[in-house]
């Protein structure tokens, strides 16, 4: 558990797949832009079940594993302390993992390319709760009058299965459009994102005690779905029961949601094209197996005031401590609620502009409009990516170079600037070995020789079978 926590806190993940976006040899690129170009000679594809796409992306915008666990003469506690103070409350840790269970697509006689599939997704983000980390690490002694912000607690996570079906069509010589409908089947969700209030220790004014410990305007809540029943020992008595519950929810037995993706590609001229997509415009409606917690209120603690009541022999004094607990519970009640809630999926936007040129190695000059010929030999372009997150959208900009190296092998190199780093180089390779399609993409290659020094890592890997005309 600890190492999971270490792993989780040392890498942050986003969902940017800059190496796959726009690479039409990879069928999964349609998941990033349902309106992306599909090779005209591609008739049918299906992914190798469970192996058609594994995506892992993890990142930390403020600290690396090496910063904490690197071999050093400096004590690890000193390094952790330094990191706590270096990081901001807008730094974040994210984890995204996707495992495609099924992916398929086919072209019909009217030149629509339909796609469908199922994938499982884990998406978690935790902003660094700087004030709470300082309070836990240092205590309050050296922070009199400092208002620890409870709003620093900001985290959310989703484990779900996505069922999708979409269509793509080149509607004119220049324009390709696509859309995809999604059904979300939530397995587990939690979020604690709208917290506010503060905790401060001040010197007292002399009328009561030495300090005043003040909880002011506290409003802290956690919403969960899929959690309460796991604590029910009548229903769950072991890991097999948990797995059984998860599988049931994964296949439309849990809380449901709806969403859609849309995208387009526009050929500006024979060399230039532009594309854009909006993904996961939708929400999950959590109505079952809900358990929410909320604490609100104000309270000032001065310690315990003794009043020395006159007592007869054997008579008990006031239950000061119980009264104190009751008073806190009354003024800052912690409620357990069971009301439904809706979670919007993290909306993602991709956009790109591409300049195609060049020729195949040993081949002819590219005829970029003729995608059945010596096409797409090289391209250069810019991509933009954003994802809506609880505190603010996150952005990434990518400069890429794509090259069709041989008739069966293509590669894409990216340079990405995002919240994690300014020097993220990535490489994606896709090969078509007969009908067998394989792709592998990884970024942060400059940190590849030692991933511990990377602020983020991303890996995508998959195998497909493609049939051409």
């Amino acid at each position, binding site marked *: 558990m600890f190492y999971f926590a270490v792993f989780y806190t040392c890498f942050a993940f986003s969902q940017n797949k800059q190496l796959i976006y726009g690479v039409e040899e990879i069928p999964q690129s349609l998941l990033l832009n349902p309106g992306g170009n599909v090779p005209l000679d591609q008739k049918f594809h299906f992914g190798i079940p469970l192996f058609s796409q594994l995506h892992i992306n993890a990142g930390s915008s403020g600290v690396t594993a090496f910063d904490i666990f690197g071999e050093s003469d400096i004590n*690890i506690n000193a390094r952790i302390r330094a990191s706590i103070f270096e990081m901001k409350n807008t730094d974040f840790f994210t984890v995204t993992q996707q495992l495609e269970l099924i992916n398929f697509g086919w072209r019909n006689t009217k030149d629509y390319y339909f796609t469908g599939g199922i994938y499982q997704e884990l998406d978690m983000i935790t902003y660094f709760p700087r004030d709470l980390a300082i309070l836990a690490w240092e205590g309050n002694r050296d922070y009199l009058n400092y208002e620890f912000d409870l709003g620093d607690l900001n985290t959310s996570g989703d484990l779900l299965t996505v069922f999708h079906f979409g269509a793509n069509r080149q509607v004119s010589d220049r324009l390709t459009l696509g859309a995809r409908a999604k059904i979300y089947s939530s397995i587990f969700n939690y979020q604690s994102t709208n917290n506010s209030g503060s905790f401060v220790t001040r010197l007292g004014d002399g009328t009561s005690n*030495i*300090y005043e410990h003040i909880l002011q305007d506290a409003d802290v809540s956690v919403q969960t779905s899929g959690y309460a029943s796991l604590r029910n020992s009548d229903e769950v008595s072991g890991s097999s029961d948990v797995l059984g519950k998860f599988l049931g929810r994964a296949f439309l037995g849990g809380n449901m949601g709806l969403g859609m993706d849309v995208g387009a590609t526009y050929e500006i001229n024979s060399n230039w094209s532009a594309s854009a997509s909006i993904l996961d415009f939708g929400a999950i409606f959590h109505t079952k197996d809900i358990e929410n917690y909320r604490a609100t209120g104000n309270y000032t603690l001065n310690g315990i*005031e003794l*009043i020395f009541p006159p007592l007869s022999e054997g008579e008990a004094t006031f239950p000061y*401590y*119980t009264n104190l607990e009751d008073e806190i519970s009354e003024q800052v009640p912690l409620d357990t609620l069971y009301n439904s809630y809706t979670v919007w999926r993290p909306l993602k936007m991709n956009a790109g502009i591409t300049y195609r040129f060049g020729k195949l190695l040993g081949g002819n000059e590219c005829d970029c409009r003729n995608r059945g010929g010596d096409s797409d030999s090289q391209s250069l372009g810019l991509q933009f990516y954003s994802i809506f997150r609880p505190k603010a959208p996150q952005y990434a900009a990518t400069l890429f170079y794509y090259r069709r190296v041989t008739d069966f092998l293509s590669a894409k190199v990216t340079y990405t600037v995002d919240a994690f780093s300014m020097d993220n180089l990535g490489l994606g*390779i896709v090969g078509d*070995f007969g009908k067998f399609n394989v792709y592998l993409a990884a970024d942060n290659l400059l940190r590849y020789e030692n*991933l511990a020094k990377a602020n983020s890592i991303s890996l995508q890997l998959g195998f497909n079978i493609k049939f051409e005309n």
Partner: protein
Amino acid sequence: MYKYALLFLVLSFGITSCIKDTDFDQADEIELSPVVELDFLFFTLDIDNFQENTGFEGTFTVVDTTEIRFLDGSFTQENLLSAEYFFRVTNSFPLGVDANFNFLTEENEPFYEIDFLILPGTNNNPASTEFIQTITAEEIEQLTQTNKVVVTFTLETLDENLSGVLNLQSKTTYFLKF
């Protein structure tokens, strides 16, 4: 053959990365050492609060008890390294006052005691007494067996019309490590 060599190259790409120059065993050395300041007891007494102590002629005492339940909690027992009690008392009684804090277990066994003398003052010029009791790592196990404190203040006088006010404020500094 050329194609499959490339395929092998592509696949091996994914398994050749590594994490090095790191020592995750250092996780065992991670220690949080917060120092927490927390108000303790406070009260104000005048002569009406005191009662003649029939057991000890010539003394007036006042006694009260409160639970401090977290003291013998498992978290405290496992993680409290040491503690420091700080008392600030202003006294306008013209006599010294004996302050006694007796920490008891659930079964009312005394396990730790703080005792100090409060300086005498006057109504016009109350005396201020500050007292710090440090509970070292060697003593802390005694404190964390307790969950209540009996507070006893004693005036040595025969004058039941004695005039004065005694105000006590206090805090505890908890040195934690976990």
